């Protein structure tokens, strides 16, 4: 069973649709700690404002559950940002799984919106993904590079397109909207 964490953040529907397209059955939208712990894989998607999203996690006590999970966990967009140390957006303390900060783009147009490339790939999450593959981004804040960076993207500055620490994975881009490349990444995650 795949648990998609439900914490009142938008756009979860598109993640469910993407999992359907790659034939992943048995997805459950839940905020129940027991269900999340029993899942084979856990997804933390989301769009929105970091401070608000973190409060939604805290109000469901998910901030204490998520860092203790031992199965593969995948954050997407805001979900990934919440797995970092802090976010400049709303001056938010996050879960502290990935040792990096979330900061705002200072140059170029904001939001960073559209298709950009992944380079310096290193993770089983990115198996069979070529260097310079394009993925779809929509965001104004980004994770800085760190030891856990498994893919770089450049937008005025280089930043973490994807991160991994042990069983925790995160993409700043949207695999559910990234065509065949995104679908391959989701399949890779589900085969972990």
């Amino acid at each position, binding site marked *: 069973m795949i648990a998609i964490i439900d914490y009142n953040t938008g*756009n979860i529907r598109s993640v469910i649709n993407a999992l359907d397209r790659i034939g992943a059955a048995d997805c459950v939208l839940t905020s129940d700690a027991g269900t999340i712990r029993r899942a084979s894989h856990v997804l933390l998607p989301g769009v929105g404002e970091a401070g608000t999203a973190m409060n939604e996690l805290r109000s469901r006590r998910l901030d204490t559950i998520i860092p203790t999970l031992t199965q593969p966990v995948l954050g997407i967009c805001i979900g990934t940002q919440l797995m970092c140390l802090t976010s400049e957006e709303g001056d938010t303390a996050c879960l502290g799984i990935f040792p990096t900060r979330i900061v705002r783009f200072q140059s170029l147009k904001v939001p960073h919106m559209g298709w950009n490339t992944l380079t310096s790939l290193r993770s089983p999450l990115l198996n069979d993904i070529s260097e310079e593959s394009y993925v779809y981004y929509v965001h104004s804040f980004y994770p800085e590079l760190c030891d856990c960076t498994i893919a770089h993207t450049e937008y005025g500055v280089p930043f973490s397109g994807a991160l991994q620490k042990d069983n925790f994975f995160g993409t700043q881009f949207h695999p559910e909207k990234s*065509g065949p490349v995104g679908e391959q990444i989701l399949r890779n995650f589900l085969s972990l």
Partner: protein
Amino acid sequence: MLSKRIIPCLDVKDGRTVKGVHFVGLRDVGDAVELGSRYAAEGADELVYLDISATHEGRHTFTQLVERIARAINIPFTVGGGISTMNDAERLLAAGADKVSINSAALARPAFISELAERFGSQFVVVAIDAKTTDNGTWHCTTHGGRRLTEVELFAWAHEAQERGAGEILFTSMDHDGTLAGYPCDTYAALSDGLSIPIIASGGAGSIDHIADVLTQGRADAALIASLFHDGVLTIPSLKQELHNRQIPVRI
């Protein structure tokens, strides 16, 4: 490097695409899902579906269509046409749309932009502007497909839309739309330089040169293309390859 986006635009009436595309092997050229899937597979970076239904039943059918599109298509898509209330937007978001495009309703009530952005985020809100030049050379916004000229000046309106939380501006010159003679690149460049959000160019392209020009001289971030694709004048792979050959960053 962030690529320039190529975005096919499909007009939908009563749940069916209006302009047929002569793809070999399409079972149903009027099926908006099949057509969108085909464009996505050919390398479209996003899709825009415009509902041109005039009736309540047509709009209801469109919502059901959006649900099918969201299930089938693996790239982002925007929906537009007749969106004038929070309920309209919420219904389409719930059906799976990634963005909504608003036009006349925003001009009639600019606070609508702010309300959408606050509730759903700026990434959800595309403000479409149809403008034409007036006798004294300034650009003014129009409504009703260009038929009604307003007092609102283009640059002031685009700036206000950004300040109210629009995530992108989709600008169509009604002087150029349908002419196949190219875009007003100077105007696009001034818009792009004056704003901090992405600009989508629409209306006027008749050739690859025109599209290349608006993405370089015009500094547009994306090009929305309808009839050139639907009429088979250009294909997405050939357009993108040619843009790539000219050192314009595109996803191939």
